């Protein structure tokens, strides 16, 4: 036999019909760029018990946690399932081949099944609640997403047959042709010279380990959603910093209140002119770091860090609108 090959790996995702019902096969299958896909956290340790020798005699296993996590390109179809898993509500408008999915924060979120094929050795994790999504880009390189999740029971299926395979697909998010707008104050973002950044949605849970079984009984209730962004901007002036600190571009005193700005960050589908994803936030409190000095010169950069909160009549702090050819999830 030859050693396992780290490149012969596929991931898969499917939506469950109910908690406890592992999907038979993935709905979407795709390649990844990093991560473990399905990680197993075993909690065990040597027991501290006195005996006739100065060494432990027992090891106790108390928990076997299951987690999902990987890095991949943002393939246009599977991305919608991840966003539905994260937000819990999907309002679909439009007709084939361009369906517009507007995701909103619901009271609950669906359970997903995560699959992994590692050199055709198969693993699956059921009852996965998506606990976070990081979306990162640099310049015009393809967008990389890192979804995370917590599940319950690990299993070892015998088949990995995705309904839709996006492995090697050309339809993934790219910054090329996208929209990069931001405002430190007000709800009307304007185009900015953004060279990279990330959007991060943290929506953690604490899995429930009930007495009687070492695997989690439930992935747990969600904590509050925390939606943040980091943007690297090459500015022509210090207006962003001034607006964050004083409230206006030419202010003369520090503002005692947080300033709410807005953003619209959009990526295009590399494989179609109609597809893409746009994040919008209408109530984003930014912080801005003044640019570094450098005796050697060069472009000054401002690092913007925003925390989006729920507007009074919005569907989410940061709203993702995905346009693809998937009618429903």
């Amino acid at each position, binding site marked *: 036999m030859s050693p396992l090959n780290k490149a012969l790996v596929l991931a898969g995702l499917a939506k469950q019909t*109910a908690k406890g019902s592992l999907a038979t096969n993935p709905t979407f299958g795709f390649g990844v760029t990093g991560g473990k896909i399905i990680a197993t956290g075993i909690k065990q340790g040597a027991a501290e018990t006195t005996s006739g020798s100065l060494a432990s005699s027992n090891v106790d296993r108390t928990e076997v946690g299951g987690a999902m996590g990987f890095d991949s390109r943002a393939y246009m179809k599977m991305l919608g399932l991840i966003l*539905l898993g994260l937000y*819990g*509500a*999907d*309002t*679909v*408008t439009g007709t084939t081949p361009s369906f517009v999915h*507007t995701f*909103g924060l*619901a*009271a*609950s*979120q*669906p359970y997903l099944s995560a699959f992994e094929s590692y050199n055709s050795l198969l693993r699956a994790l059921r009852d996965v609640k998506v606990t976070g999504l990081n979306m990162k880009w640099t310049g015009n390189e393809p967008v990389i997403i890192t979804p995370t999740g917590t599940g319950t029971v690990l299993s070892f299926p015998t088949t990995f047959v995705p309904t839709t395979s996006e492995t090697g697909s050309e339809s993934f998010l790219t910054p090329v042709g996208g929209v990069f707008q931001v405002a430190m104050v007000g709800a009307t973002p304007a185009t900015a010279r953004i060279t990279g950044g990330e959007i991060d949605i943290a929506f953690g849970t604490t899995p429930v380990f009930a007495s009687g079984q070492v695997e989690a009984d439930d992935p747990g209730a969600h904590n509050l959603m925390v939606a943040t962004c980091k943007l690297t901007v090459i500015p022509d002036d210090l207006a962003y910093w001034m607006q964050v600190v004083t409230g206006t571009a030419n202010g003369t005193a520090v503002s005692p209140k947080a300033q709410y700005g807005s953003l619209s960050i959009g990526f295009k589908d590399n494989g179609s002119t109609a597809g893409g994803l746009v994040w919008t936030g209408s109530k984003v409190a930014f912080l801005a770091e003044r640019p570094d000095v450098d005796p050697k010169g060069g472009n000054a950069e401002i690092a913007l860090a925003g925390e989006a909160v729920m507007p009074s*009549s*919005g*569907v989410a702090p940061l709203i993702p609108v995905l346009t693809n050819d998937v*009618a*429903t*999830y």
Partner: protein
Amino acid sequence: MRYAIAQDAHVEVWTNAGPVVADVVAGEVEESDVDAAVLGTLIRSGLAVAVDETPVDETPKAPKSKKG
């Protein structure tokens, strides 16, 4: 209360009791005819707007008197 639906939409929204899935058609709907979670999602996404049901006063108005 009645709501105006701006365009046809398919809605999937998860509640603690499970998913609610509905296809809504553009036009006016009665609040009681749509699942509350679906309607709430439509309202927050801007696709549903409450219709003003203030009664219109159709009582004939007296003609204004003319001077002169």
